[in-house]
Protein backbone atom coordinates (compact mmCIF):
# COMPACT_ATOMS: atom_id res chain seq x y z
CA UNK A 1 0.00 0.00 0.00
CA UNK A 2 1.14 3.50 -0.68
CA UNK A 3 -0.27 6.85 0.28
CA UNK A 4 0.71 10.34 1.26
CA UNK A 5 -0.48 12.54 4.09
CA UNK A 6 0.23 16.19 3.39
CA UNK A 7 0.90 18.78 6.06
CA UNK A 8 -2.30 19.95 7.69
CA UNK A 9 -4.34 17.29 5.95
CA UNK A 10 -6.51 14.48 7.24
CA UNK A 11 -6.43 11.18 5.43
CA UNK A 12 -9.12 8.72 6.39
CA UNK A 13 -8.36 5.03 6.28
CA UNK A 14 -11.41 2.78 6.18
CA UNK A 15 -12.07 -0.90 5.78
CA UNK A 16 -13.61 -3.91 7.44
CA UNK A 17 -12.39 -5.29 10.74
CA UNK A 18 -9.21 -7.25 10.27
CA UNK A 19 -8.19 -5.67 6.98
CA UNK A 20 -5.03 -4.20 8.49
CA UNK A 21 -5.97 -0.59 9.20
CA UNK A 22 -4.59 -0.62 12.73
CA UNK A 23 -1.53 -2.59 11.67
CA UNK A 24 -0.84 -0.02 8.98
CA UNK A 25 -1.17 2.86 11.45
CA UNK A 26 1.12 1.27 13.96
CA UNK A 27 3.67 0.18 11.42
CA UNK A 28 4.02 3.75 10.19
CA UNK A 29 5.06 4.73 13.71
CA UNK A 30 7.22 1.60 13.88
CA UNK A 31 5.36 0.28 16.87
CA UNK A 32 5.25 -2.91 14.85
CA UNK A 33 8.51 -3.66 13.09
CA UNK A 34 7.95 -3.46 9.33
CA UNK A 35 9.02 -6.38 7.15
CA UNK A 36 9.76 -4.12 4.24
CA UNK A 37 8.86 -0.90 2.47
CA UNK A 38 9.51 2.70 3.34
CA UNK A 39 7.78 5.41 5.31
CA UNK A 40 9.05 8.88 4.56
CA UNK A 41 8.38 11.46 7.24
CA UNK A 42 9.68 14.98 6.71
CA UNK A 43 12.16 13.66 4.19
CA UNK A 44 13.52 10.77 6.25
CA UNK A 45 12.76 7.07 6.05
CA UNK A 46 11.34 5.98 9.40
CA UNK A 47 11.81 2.30 8.66
CA UNK A 48 15.52 2.64 7.90
CA UNK A 49 16.24 4.84 10.88
CA UNK A 50 18.54 3.80 13.76
CA UNK A 51 16.79 3.60 17.15
CA UNK A 52 18.39 6.73 18.60
CA UNK A 53 17.32 8.95 15.72
CA UNK A 54 13.88 7.37 15.75
CA UNK A 55 13.50 8.25 19.42
CA UNK A 56 14.12 11.90 18.64
CA UNK A 57 11.76 11.80 15.70
CA UNK A 58 9.02 10.40 17.92
CA UNK A 59 8.54 13.91 19.25
CA UNK A 60 7.11 14.83 15.88
CA UNK A 61 4.67 11.91 15.57
CA UNK A 62 2.00 10.70 17.90
CA UNK A 63 -0.95 8.35 18.24
CA UNK A 64 -4.43 8.42 19.76
CA UNK A 65 -5.99 5.09 20.61
CA UNK A 66 -9.40 3.55 20.35
CA UNK A 67 -9.98 2.31 23.88
CA UNK A 68 -9.83 5.16 26.38
CA UNK A 69 -9.64 2.61 29.19
CA UNK A 70 -6.58 0.63 28.22
CA UNK A 71 -4.72 3.58 26.74
CA UNK A 72 -4.03 5.30 30.06
CA UNK A 73 -1.83 3.74 32.74
CA UNK A 74 -4.21 3.17 35.68
CA UNK A 75 -1.43 3.69 38.23
CA UNK A 76 -0.36 7.13 37.09
CA UNK A 77 -2.07 10.42 37.67
CA UNK A 78 -2.89 12.73 34.81
CA UNK A 79 0.15 14.91 35.33
CA UNK A 80 2.50 11.99 34.91
CA UNK A 81 0.56 10.45 32.02
CA UNK A 82 0.56 13.63 29.98
CA UNK A 83 3.89 14.99 31.18
CA UNK A 84 6.11 11.94 31.09
CA UNK A 85 7.13 12.38 27.48
CA UNK A 86 8.04 16.03 28.12
CA UNK A 87 10.25 14.94 30.96
CA UNK A 88 11.87 12.07 29.06
CA UNK A 89 12.73 14.27 26.12
CA UNK A 90 14.11 16.89 28.47
CA UNK A 91 11.63 19.56 27.41
CA UNK A 92 10.28 20.55 30.80
CA UNK A 93 10.30 19.47 34.41
CA UNK A 94 9.10 20.53 37.83
CA UNK A 95 6.86 23.59 37.90
CA UNK A 96 7.32 24.26 34.18
CA UNK A 97 6.16 20.74 33.40
CA UNK A 98 3.14 21.19 35.60
CA UNK A 99 2.24 24.41 33.88
CA UNK A 100 2.54 22.85 30.44
CA UNK A 101 0.40 19.89 31.40
CA UNK A 102 -2.21 22.24 32.85
CA UNK A 103 -2.19 24.22 29.61
CA UNK A 104 -2.64 21.03 27.59
CA UNK A 105 -5.56 20.03 29.78
CA UNK A 106 -7.23 23.37 29.20
CA UNK A 107 -6.53 23.04 25.50
CA UNK A 108 -8.44 19.75 25.26
CA UNK A 109 -11.31 21.13 27.31
CA UNK A 110 -10.60 19.61 30.72
CA UNK A 111 -10.22 21.37 34.04
CA UNK A 112 -6.60 22.03 34.87
CA UNK A 113 -7.13 21.28 38.56
CA UNK A 114 -7.45 17.57 37.88
CA UNK A 115 -3.75 16.86 37.45
CA UNK A 116 -3.62 14.75 40.60
CA UNK A 117 -6.50 12.57 39.53
CA UNK A 118 -6.25 9.03 38.24
CA UNK A 119 -7.77 7.73 35.00
CA UNK A 120 -10.51 5.73 36.73
CA UNK A 121 -12.04 8.97 37.97
CA UNK A 122 -12.79 10.21 34.47
CA UNK A 123 -15.50 9.31 31.99
CA UNK A 124 -14.71 7.72 28.63
CA UNK A 125 -14.88 11.01 26.77
CA UNK A 126 -12.70 12.75 29.33
CA UNK A 127 -10.20 9.94 29.16
CA UNK A 128 -10.07 10.27 25.41
CA UNK A 129 -9.33 13.97 25.89
CA UNK A 130 -6.49 13.05 28.23
CA UNK A 131 -5.22 10.73 25.50
CA UNK A 132 -5.35 13.62 23.06
CA UNK A 133 -3.53 15.89 25.52
CA UNK A 134 -0.84 13.24 25.82
CA UNK A 135 -0.58 12.97 22.04
CA UNK A 136 -0.22 16.76 21.78
CA UNK A 137 2.32 17.07 24.58
CA UNK A 138 5.37 16.83 22.38
CA UNK A 139 4.00 19.24 19.78
CA UNK A 140 3.80 16.69 16.99
CA UNK A 141 3.08 17.47 13.37
CA UNK A 142 1.53 14.09 12.54
CA UNK A 143 -0.94 12.07 14.60
CA UNK A 144 -2.32 8.63 13.90
CA UNK A 145 -5.89 8.51 15.21
CA UNK A 146 -6.51 4.80 15.57
CA UNK A 147 -10.29 4.48 15.82
CA UNK A 148 -10.02 7.50 18.10
CA UNK A 149 -13.76 7.97 18.49
CA UNK A 150 -15.14 4.48 17.85
CA UNK A 151 -15.48 3.59 21.51
CA UNK A 152 -17.33 6.76 22.47
CA UNK A 153 -21.01 7.68 22.59
CA UNK A 154 -22.28 9.44 19.51
CA UNK A 155 -22.62 12.81 21.23
CA UNK A 156 -19.12 12.55 22.67
CA UNK A 157 -17.82 11.43 19.28
CA UNK A 158 -18.95 14.70 17.78
CA UNK A 159 -17.26 16.68 20.56
CA UNK A 160 -13.99 14.83 20.18
CA UNK A 161 -14.04 15.13 16.38
CA UNK A 162 -14.66 18.84 16.62
CA UNK A 163 -11.81 19.11 19.10
CA UNK A 164 -9.52 17.27 16.69
CA UNK A 165 -10.56 19.58 13.85
CA UNK A 166 -9.99 22.67 15.97
CA UNK A 167 -6.56 21.48 16.98
CA UNK A 168 -5.72 20.77 13.38
CA UNK A 169 -6.66 24.30 12.38
CA UNK A 170 -4.62 25.82 15.19
CA UNK A 171 -1.53 23.67 15.15
CA UNK A 172 -1.38 22.63 11.49
CA UNK A 173 -1.54 18.95 12.36
CA UNK A 174 -1.75 16.11 9.87
CA UNK A 175 -3.97 13.19 10.78
CA UNK A 176 -4.13 9.65 9.60
CA UNK A 177 -7.66 8.92 10.71
CA UNK A 178 -8.32 5.19 10.98
CA UNK A 179 -11.98 4.27 11.42
CA UNK A 180 -14.71 1.96 10.33
CA UNK A 181 -17.47 4.53 10.78
CA UNK A 182 -17.82 5.96 7.28
CA UNK A 183 -19.94 8.93 8.31
CA UNK A 184 -17.24 10.04 10.74
CA UNK A 185 -14.54 9.57 8.14
CA UNK A 186 -16.45 11.57 5.56
CA UNK A 187 -16.91 14.37 8.05
CA UNK A 188 -13.31 14.74 9.11
CA UNK A 189 -11.22 13.63 6.13
CA UNK A 190 -9.84 15.58 3.21
CA UNK A 191 -8.94 12.39 1.40
CA UNK A 192 -9.97 8.82 2.05
CA UNK A 193 -8.22 5.52 1.41
CA UNK A 194 -10.24 2.29 1.33
CA UNK A 195 -8.39 -0.80 2.48
CA UNK A 196 -9.16 -4.41 1.77
CA UNK A 197 -6.94 -7.23 3.02
CA UNK A 198 -3.91 -5.07 3.60
CA UNK A 199 -4.14 -3.23 0.28
CA UNK A 200 -5.52 0.15 -0.62
CA UNK A 201 -8.11 -0.54 -3.31
CA UNK A 202 -9.32 3.00 -3.83
CA UNK A 203 -8.20 6.42 -2.77
CA UNK A 204 -9.47 9.88 -3.53
CA UNK A 205 -10.77 13.09 -2.06
CA UNK A 206 -13.51 12.48 0.47
CA UNK A 207 -16.16 14.24 -1.62
CA UNK A 208 -15.38 12.42 -4.82
CA UNK A 209 -14.98 9.03 -3.22
CA UNK A 210 -18.29 9.26 -1.43
CA UNK A 211 -20.08 10.69 -4.46
CA UNK A 212 -18.75 8.36 -7.13
CA UNK A 213 -17.00 5.30 -5.76
CA UNK A 214 -15.44 3.17 -8.49
CA UNK A 215 -14.23 0.04 -6.81
CA UNK A 216 -16.93 -2.59 -6.18
CA UNK A 217 -15.72 -2.96 -2.62
CA UNK A 218 -15.98 0.76 -1.92
CA UNK A 219 -19.47 0.71 -3.41
CA UNK A 220 -20.48 -2.11 -1.12
CA UNK A 221 -19.00 -0.31 1.89
CA UNK A 222 -20.74 2.96 1.11
CA UNK A 223 -24.06 1.28 0.52
CA UNK A 224 -23.89 0.16 4.14
CA UNK A 225 -24.18 3.74 5.43
CA UNK A 226 -27.62 4.13 6.94
CA UNK A 227 -29.70 6.68 5.04
CA UNK A 228 -31.38 9.43 6.96
CA UNK A 229 -34.57 9.00 4.97
CA UNK A 230 -36.96 6.34 6.16
CA UNK A 231 -39.02 4.49 3.62
CA UNK A 232 -36.49 4.92 0.86
CA UNK A 233 -35.96 1.72 -1.08
CA UNK A 234 -32.98 -0.13 0.25
CA UNK A 235 -30.22 -0.41 -2.28
CA UNK A 236 -27.65 -2.27 -0.28
CA UNK A 237 -24.91 -4.19 -1.99
CA UNK A 238 -24.54 -7.13 0.33
CA UNK A 239 -21.18 -8.83 0.44
CA UNK A 240 -21.23 -12.54 0.91
CA UNK A 241 -18.75 -14.58 2.85
CA UNK A 242 -16.03 -13.43 5.21
CA UNK A 243 -12.79 -11.63 4.72
CA UNK A 244 -10.27 -14.30 3.65
CA UNK A 245 -7.25 -14.92 5.83
CA UNK A 246 -4.61 -12.23 5.31
CA UNK A 247 -1.99 -14.94 5.91
CA UNK A 248 -3.17 -16.65 2.73
CA UNK A 249 -4.83 -14.05 0.53
CA UNK A 250 -6.58 -15.15 -2.69
CA UNK A 251 -4.51 -14.85 -5.88
CA UNK A 252 -5.08 -12.00 -8.29
CA UNK A 253 -7.35 -9.32 -6.94
CA UNK A 254 -7.81 -10.18 -3.29
CA UNK A 255 -11.43 -9.09 -3.46
CA UNK A 256 -12.49 -11.35 -6.37
CA UNK A 257 -14.07 -14.20 -4.31
CA UNK A 258 -16.61 -11.74 -2.95
CA UNK A 259 -16.96 -9.45 -5.94
CA UNK A 260 -20.20 -9.77 -7.91
CA UNK A 261 -18.59 -8.28 -11.01
CA UNK A 262 -15.50 -10.48 -11.01
CA UNK A 263 -13.99 -11.18 -14.43
CA UNK A 264 -12.02 -14.34 -15.19
CA UNK A 265 -8.69 -12.51 -14.98
CA UNK A 266 -9.53 -11.08 -11.55
CA UNK A 267 -8.56 -14.41 -10.00
CA UNK A 268 -5.22 -14.45 -11.82
CA UNK A 269 -3.79 -10.97 -12.22
CA UNK A 270 -3.45 -8.45 -9.48
CA UNK A 271 -4.97 -5.18 -10.70
CA UNK A 272 -2.75 -2.13 -11.07
CA UNK A 273 -3.58 1.32 -9.75
CA UNK A 274 -5.41 3.48 -12.28
CA UNK A 275 -5.95 7.18 -11.86
CA UNK A 276 -9.55 7.77 -12.94
CA UNK A 277 -9.48 11.48 -12.23
CA UNK A 278 -6.79 13.67 -10.66
CA UNK A 279 -6.01 12.24 -7.23
CA UNK A 280 -8.58 9.44 -7.49
CA UNK A 281 -6.84 6.09 -7.76
CA UNK A 282 -8.54 2.71 -8.11
CA UNK A 283 -7.10 -0.79 -8.28
CA UNK A 284 -9.71 -2.77 -10.22
CA UNK A 285 -9.70 -4.59 -13.56
CA UNK A 286 -13.21 -3.38 -14.33
CA UNK A 287 -12.11 0.20 -14.12
CA UNK A 288 -8.82 -0.23 -15.97
CA UNK A 289 -10.63 -2.10 -18.76
CA UNK A 290 -12.87 0.87 -19.23
CA UNK A 291 -15.89 -0.89 -17.85
CA UNK A 292 -17.70 0.79 -15.07
CA UNK A 293 -18.92 -1.19 -12.19
CA UNK A 294 -22.63 -0.50 -12.24
CA UNK A 295 -23.08 1.59 -9.18
CA UNK A 296 -26.40 0.42 -7.88
CA UNK A 297 -27.47 3.51 -6.04
CA UNK A 298 -29.89 5.09 -8.46
CA UNK A 299 -30.01 8.74 -7.78
CA UNK A 300 -33.58 9.01 -8.87
CA UNK A 301 -35.29 12.29 -8.13
CA UNK A 302 -36.85 11.93 -4.76
CA UNK A 303 -40.55 11.40 -4.79
CA UNK A 304 -42.62 14.44 -4.25
Amino acid sequence: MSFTVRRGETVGLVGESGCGKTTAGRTILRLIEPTGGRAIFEGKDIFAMPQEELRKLRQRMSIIFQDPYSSLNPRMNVERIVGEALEVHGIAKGAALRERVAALMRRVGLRDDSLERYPHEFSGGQRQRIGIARALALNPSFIVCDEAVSALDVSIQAQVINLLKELQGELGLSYLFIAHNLAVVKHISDRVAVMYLGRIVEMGTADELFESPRHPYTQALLSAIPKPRPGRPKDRVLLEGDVPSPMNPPPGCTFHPRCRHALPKCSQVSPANVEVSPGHVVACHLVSDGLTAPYPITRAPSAG
Partner: protein
Amino acid sequence: MIWAAVAGFPRLGALLFPEQGGSGLHPWIALVSWFGVLGLVGYTTWAGQQPPPPKDAVRSPTAELIKQFQRNRAGVFGLHIVSWMIVLALLTPLVAPFDPDAIAAGDRYMPPQPGYWMGTDDYGRDLLSRSLYGARISLSIGFIAVGLSATLGALIGAVAGYFGGWVDRASMWLVDLLLALPRLVLLLAIVGLFRSAGAQSLFLIVVILGLTGWMGVSRIVRAQVLTLKEQDFVQACRAMGIPDSRIILGHILPNAMAPVIVNASLAIGGTILTEASLSFLGLGVPPPTATWGSIINDGREFMRTAPWITIGPGLLIVLAVMSFNLLGDGLRDALDPKLRGRA
Protein backbone atom coordinates in the same frame (compact mmCIF):
# COMPACT_ATOMS: atom_id res chain seq x y z
CA MET B 1 5.49 -6.83 77.51
CA ILE B 2 5.85 -3.69 79.64
CA TRP B 3 7.50 -5.84 82.23
CA ALA B 4 9.82 -7.22 79.65
CA ALA B 5 10.66 -3.74 78.47
CA VAL B 6 11.43 -2.64 82.03
CA ALA B 7 13.44 -5.75 82.67
CA GLY B 8 15.31 -5.15 79.52
CA PHE B 9 16.03 -1.52 80.35
CA PRO B 10 19.59 -2.14 81.57
CA ARG B 11 20.27 -3.42 78.10
CA LEU B 12 19.68 -0.01 76.60
CA GLY B 13 23.40 0.59 76.60
CA ALA B 14 23.92 -2.64 74.76
CA LEU B 15 21.46 -1.44 72.17
CA LEU B 16 23.32 1.79 71.63
CA PHE B 17 26.68 0.08 71.60
CA PRO B 18 25.81 -3.39 70.47
CA GLU B 19 28.62 -5.79 71.11
CA GLN B 20 26.85 -8.91 72.19
CA GLY B 21 25.14 -11.36 69.89
CA GLY B 22 26.67 -14.16 67.97
CA SER B 23 26.42 -12.65 64.54
CA GLY B 24 27.89 -9.66 62.84
CA LEU B 25 24.41 -8.70 61.73
CA HIS B 26 23.19 -7.64 65.16
CA PRO B 27 24.79 -4.19 65.28
CA TRP B 28 23.28 -3.37 61.94
CA ILE B 29 19.85 -4.61 62.91
CA ALA B 30 20.09 -2.54 66.10
CA LEU B 31 21.03 0.54 64.11
CA VAL B 32 18.20 0.01 61.63
CA SER B 33 15.77 -0.60 64.49
CA TRP B 34 16.66 2.73 66.02
CA PHE B 35 15.96 4.56 62.81
CA GLY B 36 12.85 2.49 62.28
CA VAL B 37 11.42 3.21 65.71
CA LEU B 38 12.32 6.89 65.58
CA GLY B 39 10.77 7.13 62.13
CA LEU B 40 7.63 5.37 63.26
CA VAL B 41 7.21 7.63 66.30
CA GLY B 42 7.94 10.67 64.17
CA TYR B 43 5.48 9.65 61.50
CA THR B 44 2.62 8.91 63.91
CA THR B 45 3.10 12.27 65.58
CA TRP B 46 3.18 14.01 62.22
CA ALA B 47 0.21 12.08 60.87
CA GLY B 48 -1.76 12.86 64.06
CA GLN B 49 -1.37 16.57 63.42
CA GLN B 50 -2.52 16.41 59.82
CA PRO B 51 -6.16 17.23 59.12
CA PRO B 52 -8.11 14.14 58.11
CA PRO B 53 -8.65 13.95 54.34
CA PRO B 54 -12.10 15.06 53.18
CA LYS B 55 -14.54 12.24 52.74
CA ASP B 56 -14.97 12.54 49.01
CA ALA B 57 -11.24 12.90 48.52
CA VAL B 58 -9.76 11.42 45.42
CA ARG B 59 -8.65 7.89 46.14
CA SER B 60 -5.56 6.60 44.47
CA PRO B 61 -5.51 2.92 43.52
CA THR B 62 -3.44 2.29 46.65
CA ALA B 63 -6.03 3.85 48.94
CA GLU B 64 -8.69 1.78 47.24
CA LEU B 65 -6.64 -1.33 47.89
CA ILE B 66 -6.25 -0.55 51.60
CA LYS B 67 -9.99 -0.17 51.92
CA GLN B 68 -10.59 -3.49 50.22
CA PHE B 69 -8.00 -5.20 52.37
CA GLN B 70 -9.55 -3.96 55.60
CA ARG B 71 -12.71 -5.87 54.82
CA ASN B 72 -10.91 -9.17 55.10
CA ARG B 73 -10.71 -10.03 58.81
CA ALA B 74 -8.29 -12.93 58.52
CA GLY B 75 -5.95 -10.80 56.44
CA VAL B 76 -6.09 -7.94 58.94
CA PHE B 77 -5.39 -10.45 61.72
CA GLY B 78 -2.36 -11.72 59.82
CA LEU B 79 -1.17 -8.17 59.26
CA HIS B 80 -1.48 -7.41 62.98
CA ILE B 81 0.49 -10.48 64.02
CA VAL B 82 3.15 -9.79 61.42
CA SER B 83 3.42 -6.14 62.48
CA TRP B 84 3.73 -7.12 66.13
CA MET B 85 6.42 -9.63 65.33
CA ILE B 86 8.33 -7.02 63.38
CA VAL B 87 8.02 -4.46 66.17
CA LEU B 88 9.13 -6.98 68.77
CA ALA B 89 12.02 -8.08 66.59
CA LEU B 90 13.09 -4.46 66.13
CA LEU B 91 12.85 -3.77 69.86
CA THR B 92 14.38 -7.07 70.94
CA PRO B 93 17.41 -5.59 72.73
CA LEU B 94 14.97 -3.55 74.84
CA VAL B 95 12.49 -6.28 75.65
CA ALA B 96 14.63 -9.40 75.86
CA PRO B 97 15.26 -10.08 79.55
CA PHE B 98 18.58 -11.87 79.03
CA ASP B 99 21.51 -12.13 76.71
CA PRO B 100 20.39 -14.83 74.29
CA ASP B 101 23.74 -16.56 74.42
CA ALA B 102 24.44 -16.18 78.16
CA ILE B 103 24.94 -19.55 79.79
CA ALA B 104 23.63 -20.15 83.31
CA ALA B 105 24.90 -23.53 84.47
CA GLY B 106 22.58 -23.60 87.44
CA ASP B 107 19.42 -22.95 85.45
CA ARG B 108 19.49 -25.75 82.88
CA TYR B 109 16.24 -27.34 81.65
CA MET B 110 14.02 -24.94 83.57
CA PRO B 111 10.37 -25.30 82.49
CA PRO B 112 8.41 -22.11 81.72
CA GLN B 113 7.99 -20.06 84.91
CA PRO B 114 8.11 -16.43 86.06
CA GLY B 115 11.54 -15.13 85.16
CA TYR B 116 12.01 -17.72 82.45
CA TRP B 117 8.72 -17.34 80.61
CA MET B 118 9.57 -19.90 77.97
CA GLY B 119 11.96 -21.95 80.09
CA THR B 120 15.66 -22.55 79.52
CA ASP B 121 17.59 -24.96 77.36
CA ASP B 122 20.41 -27.41 78.00
CA TYR B 123 22.92 -24.60 78.54
CA GLY B 124 20.58 -22.67 80.82
CA ARG B 125 20.00 -20.01 78.13
CA ASP B 126 16.70 -18.14 78.41
CA LEU B 127 14.43 -19.37 75.61
CA LEU B 128 12.30 -16.20 75.51
CA SER B 129 15.38 -14.12 74.80
CA ARG B 130 16.67 -16.66 72.31
CA SER B 131 13.30 -16.79 70.55
CA LEU B 132 13.15 -12.99 70.35
CA TYR B 133 16.65 -12.76 68.93
CA GLY B 134 15.81 -15.73 66.75
CA ALA B 135 12.81 -13.82 65.41
CA ARG B 136 15.14 -11.09 64.19
CA ILE B 137 17.26 -13.53 62.27
CA SER B 138 14.36 -15.64 61.00
CA LEU B 139 12.28 -12.64 59.94
CA SER B 140 15.28 -10.85 58.43
CA ILE B 141 16.17 -13.92 56.44
CA GLY B 142 12.56 -14.19 55.30
CA PHE B 143 12.27 -10.55 54.27
CA ILE B 144 15.69 -10.10 52.72
CA ALA B 145 15.69 -13.42 50.86
CA VAL B 146 12.18 -12.85 49.52
CA GLY B 147 12.99 -9.24 48.70
CA LEU B 148 15.95 -10.50 46.72
CA SER B 149 14.05 -13.25 44.94
CA ALA B 150 11.00 -11.09 44.21
CA THR B 151 13.16 -8.32 42.75
CA LEU B 152 15.19 -10.74 40.72
CA GLY B 153 12.13 -12.65 39.58
CA ALA B 154 10.20 -9.52 38.65
CA LEU B 155 13.09 -8.12 36.63
CA ILE B 156 13.84 -11.37 34.82
CA GLY B 157 10.16 -12.01 34.15
CA ALA B 158 9.59 -8.46 32.93
CA VAL B 159 12.58 -8.47 30.61
CA ALA B 160 11.68 -11.92 29.27
CA GLY B 161 8.07 -10.98 28.65
CA TYR B 162 8.76 -7.52 27.25
CA PHE B 163 11.50 -8.35 24.80
CA GLY B 164 10.34 -11.87 23.94
CA GLY B 165 12.35 -13.81 21.37
CA TRP B 166 15.54 -15.51 22.44
CA VAL B 167 15.75 -13.53 25.71
CA ASP B 168 12.41 -15.00 26.67
CA ARG B 169 13.28 -18.53 25.59
CA ALA B 170 16.63 -18.52 27.38
CA SER B 171 15.31 -17.22 30.68
CA MET B 172 12.28 -19.49 30.73
CA TRP B 173 14.52 -22.42 29.92
CA LEU B 174 16.64 -21.47 32.94
CA VAL B 175 13.48 -21.25 35.06
CA ASP B 176 12.35 -24.69 33.97
CA LEU B 177 15.77 -26.09 34.72
CA LEU B 178 15.93 -24.58 38.21
CA LEU B 179 12.37 -25.59 39.01
CA ALA B 180 13.21 -29.16 38.08
CA LEU B 181 15.82 -29.31 40.85
CA PRO B 182 14.47 -30.07 44.31
CA ARG B 183 15.07 -26.87 46.28
CA LEU B 184 16.09 -28.40 49.58
CA VAL B 185 18.63 -30.72 48.00
CA LEU B 186 19.97 -27.84 45.96
CA LEU B 187 20.22 -25.72 49.10
CA LEU B 188 21.98 -28.48 51.03
CA ALA B 189 24.48 -28.93 48.24
CA ILE B 190 25.24 -25.22 47.85
CA VAL B 191 25.40 -24.54 51.57
CA GLY B 192 27.66 -27.54 52.06
CA LEU B 193 29.88 -26.41 49.22
CA PHE B 194 30.29 -22.82 50.41
CA ARG B 195 30.44 -23.72 54.07
CA SER B 196 33.57 -25.72 53.40
CA ALA B 197 34.92 -22.75 51.48
CA GLY B 198 34.50 -20.75 54.68
CA ALA B 199 31.94 -18.23 53.49
CA GLN B 200 30.00 -16.21 56.04
CA SER B 201 27.00 -18.28 56.86
CA LEU B 202 24.09 -15.97 57.58
CA PHE B 203 24.81 -13.86 54.51
CA LEU B 204 25.31 -17.01 52.48
CA ILE B 205 21.96 -18.45 53.49
CA VAL B 206 20.08 -15.28 52.69
CA VAL B 207 21.69 -15.04 49.27
CA ILE B 208 21.15 -18.69 48.47
CA LEU B 209 17.52 -18.63 49.58
CA GLY B 210 17.06 -15.53 47.49
CA LEU B 211 18.75 -16.93 44.42
CA THR B 212 16.75 -20.15 44.48
CA GLY B 213 13.32 -18.63 45.01
CA TRP B 214 12.78 -16.28 42.06
CA MET B 215 11.51 -18.69 39.42
CA GLY B 216 7.86 -18.69 40.41
CA VAL B 217 7.77 -14.90 40.55
CA SER B 218 9.42 -14.54 37.18
CA ARG B 219 6.83 -16.77 35.56
CA ILE B 220 3.96 -14.83 37.11
CA VAL B 221 5.46 -11.51 36.06
CA ARG B 222 6.23 -12.72 32.55
CA ALA B 223 2.62 -13.79 32.05
CA GLN B 224 1.42 -10.39 33.27
CA VAL B 225 3.86 -8.54 31.05
CA LEU B 226 2.79 -10.47 27.98
CA THR B 227 -0.71 -9.04 28.32
CA LEU B 228 0.38 -5.62 29.59
CA LYS B 229 2.78 -4.90 26.76
CA GLU B 230 -0.03 -5.11 24.22
CA GLN B 231 -2.04 -2.55 26.15
CA ASP B 232 -2.39 0.79 24.46
CA PHE B 233 -0.77 2.75 27.26
CA VAL B 234 2.46 0.83 26.71
CA GLN B 235 2.19 1.36 22.96
CA ALA B 236 1.62 5.06 23.64
CA CYS B 237 4.86 5.17 25.61
CA ARG B 238 6.71 3.55 22.75
CA ALA B 239 5.16 5.98 20.28
CA MET B 240 6.38 8.90 22.39
CA GLY B 241 9.90 7.54 22.47
CA ILE B 242 10.03 6.65 26.15
CA PRO B 243 12.99 4.28 26.65
CA ASP B 244 12.33 0.58 27.19
CA SER B 245 13.91 0.59 30.65
CA ARG B 246 11.57 3.33 31.76
CA ILE B 247 8.55 1.60 30.24
CA ILE B 248 9.38 -1.62 32.09
CA LEU B 249 10.14 0.02 35.45
CA GLY B 250 7.60 2.82 35.34
CA HIS B 251 4.63 1.40 33.46
CA ILE B 252 4.73 -2.37 33.25
CA LEU B 253 6.11 -3.46 36.62
CA PRO B 254 3.82 -1.24 38.75
CA ASN B 255 0.86 -2.81 36.97
CA ALA B 256 2.27 -6.31 37.38
CA MET B 257 3.13 -5.94 41.07
CA ALA B 258 -0.12 -7.17 42.59
CA PRO B 259 0.55 -10.89 42.19
CA VAL B 260 4.19 -10.34 43.09
CA ILE B 261 3.26 -8.79 46.43
CA VAL B 262 0.85 -11.62 47.15
CA ASN B 263 3.42 -14.17 46.14
CA ALA B 264 6.08 -12.47 48.28
CA SER B 265 4.00 -12.42 51.43
CA LEU B 266 3.28 -16.12 50.97
CA ALA B 267 6.92 -16.77 50.15
CA ILE B 268 8.16 -15.10 53.34
CA GLY B 269 6.37 -17.78 55.34
CA GLY B 270 7.82 -20.45 53.11
CA THR B 271 11.31 -19.02 53.40
CA ILE B 272 11.10 -18.92 57.19
CA LEU B 273 10.13 -22.58 57.04
CA THR B 274 12.96 -23.41 54.68
CA GLU B 275 15.46 -21.62 56.89
CA ALA B 276 14.07 -23.53 59.86
CA SER B 277 14.46 -26.79 57.94
CA LEU B 278 18.04 -25.92 57.05
CA SER B 279 18.84 -24.97 60.64
CA PHE B 280 17.14 -28.11 61.83
CA LEU B 281 19.33 -30.12 59.50
CA GLY B 282 22.32 -28.35 60.99
CA LEU B 283 23.14 -26.45 57.81
CA GLY B 284 21.54 -23.15 58.70
CA VAL B 285 22.98 -20.28 60.66
CA PRO B 286 25.81 -21.73 62.78
CA PRO B 287 25.55 -21.88 66.59
CA PRO B 288 25.39 -20.18 68.96
CA THR B 289 23.32 -17.64 66.96
CA ALA B 290 19.67 -18.25 67.68
CA THR B 291 17.15 -18.71 64.94
CA TRP B 292 13.83 -20.44 65.39
CA GLY B 293 15.04 -23.42 63.43
CA SER B 294 18.31 -23.72 65.29
CA ILE B 295 16.60 -23.54 68.70
CA ILE B 296 14.38 -26.42 67.66
CA ASN B 297 17.42 -28.26 66.40
CA ASP B 298 19.17 -27.71 69.75
CA GLY B 299 16.14 -28.99 71.61
CA ARG B 300 15.65 -32.05 69.46
CA GLU B 301 17.56 -34.39 71.80
CA PHE B 302 15.58 -33.23 74.83
CA MET B 303 12.09 -33.52 73.39
CA ARG B 304 11.06 -35.98 76.06
CA THR B 305 12.67 -34.36 79.08
CA ALA B 306 12.32 -30.68 78.10
CA PRO B 307 9.68 -30.39 75.36
CA TRP B 308 9.32 -26.62 75.89
CA ILE B 309 12.61 -26.05 74.10
CA THR B 310 11.10 -27.18 70.82
CA ILE B 311 7.42 -26.35 71.38
CA GLY B 312 7.87 -22.59 71.96
CA PRO B 313 9.82 -21.72 68.83
CA GLY B 314 7.78 -24.30 66.93
CA LEU B 315 4.59 -22.45 67.79
CA LEU B 316 6.23 -19.18 66.82
CA ILE B 317 7.10 -20.59 63.40
CA VAL B 318 3.54 -21.82 62.96
CA LEU B 319 2.14 -18.47 64.03
CA ALA B 320 4.50 -16.51 61.79
CA VAL B 321 3.97 -18.65 58.71
CA MET B 322 0.22 -18.71 59.24
CA SER B 323 0.10 -14.94 59.65
CA PHE B 324 2.09 -14.36 56.48
CA ASN B 325 -0.22 -16.72 54.62
CA LEU B 326 -3.35 -14.98 55.92
CA LEU B 327 -1.81 -11.64 55.00
CA GLY B 328 -0.99 -12.93 51.53
CA ASP B 329 -4.47 -14.34 51.02
CA GLY B 330 -6.01 -11.08 52.17
CA LEU B 331 -3.82 -9.10 49.78
CA ARG B 332 -4.69 -11.42 46.93
CA ASP B 333 -8.40 -11.00 47.56
CA ALA B 334 -8.04 -7.24 47.80
CA LEU B 335 -5.97 -7.04 44.63
CA ASP B 336 -8.13 -9.33 42.54
CA PRO B 337 -11.12 -7.32 41.37
CA LYS B 338 -13.01 -10.52 40.60
CA LEU B 339 -13.07 -11.49 44.27
CA ARG B 340 -14.17 -8.06 45.47
CA GLY B 341 -17.20 -7.92 47.63
CA ARG B 342 -17.17 -11.61 48.43
CA ALA B 343 -14.99 -11.59 51.51
